[in-house]
């Protein structure tokens, strides 16, 4: 009975769904004793200040501002992919309350489509630490969780914002219930004309008299975006020691990729548009027994995507050059059982079944439909033994066996160990070692044209070591951690053009990704000012160890394109009597656009990226409720910059937000 109570109170404690104020102490995040199940893993939890500062932005912006993951951003409101520890976008798995958001078609997640508002906790499991969640995350797992507050009777939040370039943000949340039953509804709507102006120095007309260049001032045309979604959750205690959770997330995205700066097509030509609809239902049942906990989950991630490249023809039907339609669905069944032999020994066993089905078609205006319709059934079973030897030493061992499309792949082991050299102090040393496999996506295997059914899975060997400290020093909550990792990845999948004019994936022999991650933060109070700092730095080497193609190949031993060697970010937040100011700084070092890391042309390198955002605000208390007014100044120094070659980015812009919590 005691165990059940402890489990319940732990569940309730982690379920503080709305931080009361932005001055909330972050100590609750770092003070937890190391769980033996997590021993050796590198886990980053996004703190509550960063969460509340990110409510109206996408997961891509939040991650680039608060973590060591590099986000490759194709423009405001456009696609954004992640590189975690120097790996490819498909190597970062995103798990939302136990279901994978990675499309089985592309293997990756577009982080720009995930609203931070729809999640309560964001945790990163770095590298080999992700194997307890799932296999295949060679970079790591971004874990998104939703929680509830069983004490809640009625509460909610309204958030409304207006911003530059005709941007409107609307968020709404309402929670109601009692100790037995909670219902939570969230919705968002987000629209932007996105038509910022810029001087385009990548094209010029020649002044017929002087011969000088005339650079045009342009607008970011045809880039409006509109996204909306609904998240409905039900939490229920049918009997005292079990919980049933039902969730359904619907989202619609409608946006485009900006045209390149060198583009001089007809204004009505080559307009691209991508429309997505996603449905994600999940049902979960947790049963807390005397010694064991049973967890059953069934869910689905169904995504419909339409991409069109078209030319508007005056007084006639649009001419559609590319019209590609896809339906990508994953149906997931998960069961796991945790048995506690004692406080110092536990065993977790689990099994997952994923049924993935993709239909992808390109429907040209003239000619045959090209595409594929394939499915794959994947199973995974695992067993994890975790032990605390004493208060200072914990270790765990995990074994996972995957059966992918009927073929079993070699056993995946993972081992972690963590040691606290000084009793009752926050110093720690930890290490983790694992093997991992990542399966090709269904597009990799079957895309028409180019898909390569002979692709081998990517195979990684990963080592992780870290040290750090967390605790309180003279009323200052302080934490710092330093990690070093090495991942040798064989059969790395890369898409390359072919002489036939289409792209084809192939297995590179090997990529070695290694690096250092440093995170620190402190918070406290000084002269009645609450302050909070958090900073990250990553050094990333992601090195091509393929066989040279011939004597002329200069890519071997070089950094992979678009992966910065240095990346850093910093957040500082001060508040006093309701007034608050937050400064967010993000930095990436130069990124190469070629595999040979050439620097001969200006197009070979993207210069280092520095971004400064400032938020200023005031919180008012009205009866029991709170009103917060915040002004965000983005790109404070009005920098002209690129994150991807030739994609225009906005200058200084503003956003005004009103948040009302009741």
């Amino acid at each position, binding site marked *: 009975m005691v165990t059940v109570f402890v489990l319940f109170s732990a569940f309730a404690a982690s379920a503080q769904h709305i931080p009361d104020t932005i001055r909330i102490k972050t100590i609750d995040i770092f003070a937890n004793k190391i769980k033996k199940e997590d021993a050796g893993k590198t886990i980053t939890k996004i703190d509550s200040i960063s969460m509340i500062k990110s409510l109206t932005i996408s997961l891509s912006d939040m991650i680039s501002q608060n973590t060591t993951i590099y986000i490759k951003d194709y423009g405001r409101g456009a696609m954004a992919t992640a590189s975690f520890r120097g790996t490819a976008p498909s190597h970062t798995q995103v798990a939302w309350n136990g279901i994978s958001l990675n499309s089985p078609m592309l293997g990756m997640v577009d982080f720009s489509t995930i609203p931070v508002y729809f999640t309560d906790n964001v945790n990163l499991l770095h590298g080999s630490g992700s194997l307890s969640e799932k296999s295949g995350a060679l970079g790591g797992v971004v874990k998104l969780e939703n929680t509830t507050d069983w004490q809640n009777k009625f509460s909610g939040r309204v958030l409304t914002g207006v911003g530059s370039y005709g941007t409107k943000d609307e968020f709404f949340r309402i929670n109601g219930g009692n100790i037995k039953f909670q219902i939570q509804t969230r919705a968002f709507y987000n629209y932007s004309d996105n038509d910022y102006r810029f001087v385009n120095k990548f094209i010029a007309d020649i002044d017929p008299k002087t011969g000088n260049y005339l650079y045009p001032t342009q607008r970011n045309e045809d880039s409006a975006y509109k996204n909306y979604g609904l998240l409905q959750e039900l939490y229920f205690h049918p009997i005292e020691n079990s919980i049933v959770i039902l969730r359904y997330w619907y989202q619609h995205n409608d946006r485009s990729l900006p045209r390149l700066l060198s583009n001089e097509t007809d204004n009505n*030509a080559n307009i691209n548009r991508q429309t997505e609809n996603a449905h994600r239902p999940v049902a979960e049942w947790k049963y807390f027994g005397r010694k064991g906990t049973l967890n059953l989950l069934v869910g689905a991630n169904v995504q419909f995507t339409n991409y069109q490249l078209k030319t508007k023809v005056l007084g006639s039907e649009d001419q559609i050059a590319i019209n590609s339609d896809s339906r990508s669905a994953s149906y997931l069944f998960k069961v796991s059982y945790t048995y506690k032999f004692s406080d110092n020994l536990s065993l977790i066993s689990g099994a997952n079944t994923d049924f993935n089905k993709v239909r992808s078609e390109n429907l040209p205006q003239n000619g*045959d439909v090209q595409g594929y319709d394939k499915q794959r059934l994947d199973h995974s079973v695992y067993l994890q033994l975790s032990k605390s030897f004493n208060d200072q030493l914990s270790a765990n061992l995990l074994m996972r066996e995957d059966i992918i499309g009927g073929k079993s792949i070699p056993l995946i082991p993972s081992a972690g160990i963590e040691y606290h050299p000084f009793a009752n102090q926050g110093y720690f040393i930890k290490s983790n070692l694992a093997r991992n496999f990542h399966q090709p996506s269904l597009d990799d295997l079957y895309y*028409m044209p180019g898909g390569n059914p002979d692709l081998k899975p990517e195979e990684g060997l990963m080592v992780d070591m870290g040290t750090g400290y967390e605790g309180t020093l003279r009323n200052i909550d302080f934490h710092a951690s330093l990690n070093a990792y090495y991942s040798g990845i064989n059969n790395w999948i890369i898409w390359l053009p072919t002489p036939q004019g289409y792209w084809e994936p192939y297995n590179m022999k090997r990529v070695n990704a290694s690096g250092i991650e440093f995170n620190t933060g402190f918070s406290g109070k000084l002269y009645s000012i609450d302050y909070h700092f958090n900073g990250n730095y990553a050094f990333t080497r992601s090195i091509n160890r393929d066989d040279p193609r011939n004597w002329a190949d200069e890519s071997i031993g070089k950094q992979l394109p678009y992966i910065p060697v240095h990346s850093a970010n910093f957040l500082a937040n001060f508040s006093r009597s309701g007034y608050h100011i937050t400064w967010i700084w993000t930095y990436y070092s130069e990124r190469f656009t070629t595999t040979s890391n*050439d620097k001969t042309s*200006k197009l070979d390198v993207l210069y280092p990226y520095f971004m400064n955002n400032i938020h200023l605000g005031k919180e008012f208390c009205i009866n029991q409720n709170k009103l917060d007014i915040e002004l965000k100044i983005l790109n404070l120094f009005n920098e002209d910059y690129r994150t991807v070659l030739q994609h225009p980015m906005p200058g200084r812009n503003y956003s005004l937000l009103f948040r009302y919590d009741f």
Partner: protein
Amino acid sequence: MKVNRLNITLIVLTLFVFAGCMKDDEWIKSHRNSALLPKGVFIINEGNFMYGNASLSFYDPAKREIQNDIFYNTNGLPLGDVAQSMGIHNSLGYIVINNSGKIYVIDTSDGKYVGKITGLNSPRYMHFVNNEKAYITDLYAGKITIVNPITYQITGAISTPNHASTEQMVQWNNFLFVSCWSYDNTILVIDTRTDAVVNEIKTGKQPGGLVLDKYNKIWTLCDGGWAKSGTTSRIPMLQRIDAATQTIEKSFSLTADAKPSRLAINGAGDSLLFINDGIWKLGVNQATIGDHPFLSSANHLYYSLAIDPKTSEIYLSDAIDYMQRGVIYRCSSLGARIDSFKTGIIPGAFCFK
């Protein structure tokens, strides 16, 4: 660790030092030097799709000298996204930038940008009919655009209903033959006096390359398209068309797994080359394609080829991994290597000056 007000101020000030130095102006610092371009060959480097890193190189075979990035270095502007082809007319060079929807016009003596034709859709190739008229094919537009190569103005269009893609062009007398490549199997015949489509010739799947031999026969290389999943119904082929009767006279079938590309003809008009893994050669009077390539691929993935019309020397390009500067091999007409040099990303087309 005693934190006081001064310390915090210092931390904040130090961090502001890290702010801001991303300057597009630095990036675009114009050189506007003019390159001196003697007799030789322009190499059009496609660059990566959606990267906008196409570039122009120039090779002087007499001195064995290569100049890279000449458009950017001379003009302070990037060439654009996916440079497809180039044609020279009256000492001006017309560079077709496929995914930028434009044609840059340069002075071929010094590489200077003198004008541009903009407002196109997805242009592929340009063919000069006379001093006032040129045709531009397009991958998606469903029309051939007519332009004036002197004024750079669009003067009209030839609609090609049911053929979104128009590709390469070759002219015999007043008739222009146009291959319809993407998802198509047609060669259109256009009367250049009336700008009207006068005939359609059905070919194998996806006819791309188009050349005219010394016997007034037109050759086209059909890459066979892509097999539908689970089928192997591709028949890539080389076909010969009589220009006068506008009918197919002969088809040379290749194997179902062949991926042929880049048909070229020598200056004398009697010998064809194309890439199919290795480099294959076919005399225009030959009855069959042999079993062995003229040059084996060895450890090369050949991307493009061209034949110098005057010397019959062969230029082969290898894009290596397509994400670094590619290499060009210059060979004698018999295939002996004369020189090799690096140019830009994905060297795709050649234009002899």
